[in-house]
């Protein structure tokens, strides 16, 4: 399941629904990311997330399919928010279900690295001292390189 939307994400509710759809899987891993409250240039007032549909969705679908090829995964859910949001709000939720806990962990980890460095989004942080576009950090690229996958977009 994939949803890219300006609607708020309720991670707890998303997990409840995912548990229903993943019944019998045995192991469920979730990741939720919140808008950080603090930027280098001060307190974050808003975060703006831009997508390029349907390229954004197509790319994430490819990553989901690749995760299903690489690991023995029963279910995957990716929710990603776009538009304007406030500090502390959930920007991304990923859930994976598998018979094997390592597969569930690795697939979730892989999907997050994809979302951070390859998914077609642009982020702008608004602080009291102005707006700033945020691009992936060197660390994010190092994390993503662990999977040594070909570029999918």
């Amino acid at each position: 399941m994939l949803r890219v939307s300006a609607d708020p994400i309720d991670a707890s509710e998303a997990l409840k629904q995912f548990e229903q759809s993943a019944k019998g899987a045995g192991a469920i891993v979730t990741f939720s990311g919140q808008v950080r409250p603090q930027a280098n240039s001060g307190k974050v007032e808003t975060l703006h997330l831009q997508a390029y549909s349907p390229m954004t969705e197509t790319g994430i679908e490819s990553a989901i399919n690749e995760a299903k090829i690489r690991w023995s995964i029963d279910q995957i859910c990716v929710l990603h928010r776009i538009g304007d949001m406030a500090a502390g709000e959930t920007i991304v939720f990923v859930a994976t279900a598998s018979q094997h806990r390592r597969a569930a962990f690795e697939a979730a980890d892989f999907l997050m690295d994809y979302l951070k460095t390859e998914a077609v989004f642009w982020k702008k942080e608004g602080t009291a001292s102005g707006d700033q576009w945020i691009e992936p950090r060197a660390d994010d690229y190092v994390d993503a390189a662990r999977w040594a996958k070909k570029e999918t977009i």
Partner: protein
Amino acid sequence: MRKILYFGRLSDITGCQEEMLDIPSEIETAGALRKWLDDRFHATGALLDPTVRIALDQEIIFDGTPIQSANEIAFMPPVGGG
């Protein structure tokens, strides 16, 4: 007329996120379009930065790719969500 999109930090330079544009017929490739638009916006190289990728009709292409058949051309600085 083609739709041109400027994502992320590029829209701060171009002043718009998208526009409809008549591209002169001598601008045949993505690379030539980069240069032409960079001049037009006085972007001083912002559009030439190799980390800025170009998508024709939602497909990433190289600078040498011909642009004649494209309806929608997007300039994409480094992506990243989450």
